[in-house]
Each structure stands twice: as structure tokens, then as C-alpha cells.
């Protein structure tokens, strides 16, 4: 089994992950719906994971993939807690529009 990056090249993966990460940033800035903001954060996390796996293949080393496992565990915990917070915000104020959540403004 020869290295798959012989035919693709690590640069292409870097470009793909950079663009995917920027799409995530764009989603956080562009939308007001808090759930879509969460989805954009997931996209950003996935871009980084993909780059980890690409470099793990580049160095022929398993450590990058171990790191991806840990970041997946953190992402799962983050989504569970975040969505619970969103549900309780929705119960209290009836909306999840991030522009309306400014009670701390004083």
C-alpha cells in the first residue's frame, strides 16, 4: 500500500481545510439562529480533524488519529451541554435569536 498523498498532495488537503474552517467562521458571523451557529462550530472542528488525519497519514504515525478521537469526545460533550443550554434559553425567553440575548448588557 503506497502513500495515498503521493497522488493528492498534502497542499490540497491544507487548502480544503482552510476553506472549510473559513466557512465555519463565516457561519458564526452571518447567522442569528443559535443552532446554525452551533453547526458552524461543528464544521470548524471537523476541518481541524481532517487536517489532523491528513498529517497523520503524511507522517505515517497514529498519534494524529488519537488526537482526533479526543477532539471527537470533546465535541460530543460540547454539543450535548450546548444544546441543553439552548433549550433552557428557549424555555425562558421563547427565542434562540442570538441578537436577543443581551440581558447581561446592563
Amino acid at each position: 500500500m503506497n502513500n495515498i498523498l503521493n497522488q493528492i498532495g498534502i497542499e490540497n488537503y491544507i487548502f480544503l481545510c482552510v476553506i472549510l474552517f473559513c466557512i465555519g467562521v463565516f457561519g458564526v458571523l452571518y447567522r442569528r439562529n443559535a443552532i446554525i451557529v452551533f453547526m458552524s462550530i461543528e464544521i470548524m472542528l471537523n476541518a481541524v480533524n481532517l487536517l489532523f488525519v491528513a498529517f497523520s497519514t503524511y507522517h505515517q504515525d497514529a498519534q494524529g488519529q488519537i488526537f482526533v478521537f479526543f477532539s471527537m469526545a470533546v465535541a460530543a460533550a460540547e454539543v450535548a451541554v450546548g444544546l441543553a443550554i439552548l433549550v433552557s434559553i428557549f424555555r425562558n425567553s421563547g427565542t434562540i435569536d442570538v441578537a436577543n440575548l443581551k440581558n447581561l448588557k446592563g
Partner: protein
Amino acid sequence: MSIVLILFCVLSAVTLATAFLTIFSKNPIHSAIYLVICFFSIAGHYLLMNSQFLAIVHVIVYSGAIMILFLFTIMLMNLNKENEVHKPRITRLGAIVSFCLICFVLILIFINSNPIVGEYITTGEDFQSIKVLGKVLLNEYMVPFEYASILLLVAMIGTVLLSKKEKLEK
């Protein structure tokens, strides 16, 4: 062009297009569906790099668990109508400009730094099957592995506490 490169291009196009559609579609349920397609294409990328176990875990965790959580939350909040007010035009313009700028700067940094990409080595030994990953995970990364389980436990308790109905004060 080799067949692997064509596969990579198709998968990347699907990934980027569905990521954009996730952000631009009005209905949150459509966004969730597009996000599932995006995650599946990323799992395809993992398969392309021959990391089968990671691809399967990715499909189970992201497309299975996280997306079900998203869909249930959307249904719980009854958000599947398109009544979202847009941000003011200046903010949206700023978002688009900053998106282009971040992309431009990151890619230019990478190109201008002229990284030395060496030969793509092939050690020939297996490094991404379940057997090897399990050995590395339970030998070198034993302590972080246990901490991950504690993190998941704490997250579970926190979620249950947060979503419990508060008792009415008398």
C-alpha cells in the same frame, strides 16, 4: 489525472457545497440534513486516507449521535418554519468581507512560507487499524483516555441538570 485525485475533487466539492448550504438554507431542518451530507463526505475523505476505524467512528458519532441531537432540539423548539429575521445588511456584508479576508490571509501565509514538502514516505507498517490504534490509546494515552471518560460523565450530568424542569417556587 488519477482516479484518486478525481475522487478527492468530487468529495471536496460535495463537502464545501454542503457546508455552504448549511449556512445559507433558511429552514434549520434543511441545514441539519446538509450537515449530515457534509459529515458523510468527510468520512469519505477519511476512507480515502485508509483510516477505516476513524471513518466509522466519525459516522457513528457525528452523523449518528450529534445530528440526532440537533434534529431533536430543532423539533423540540418547533423551529421548522422560516421566520428568522436577517441580520442588518452591514453586518452581513462584514461577515462576507471577513470570510474572504481570512481565507485570503491563511492561504497566502501558507503559499508564501514555502513549506518544504518532502517525499511521501511509506513505512509499510500498519499504523491505523483498530489493533494499533487501541495499543497506542491504552499505552501512551492512558491518562487522557480516562479523563475523556470523566469529561463525558460530567457532560452527561450537566445536561440532565440543565434540561430538568425547575420546580416552581411557592
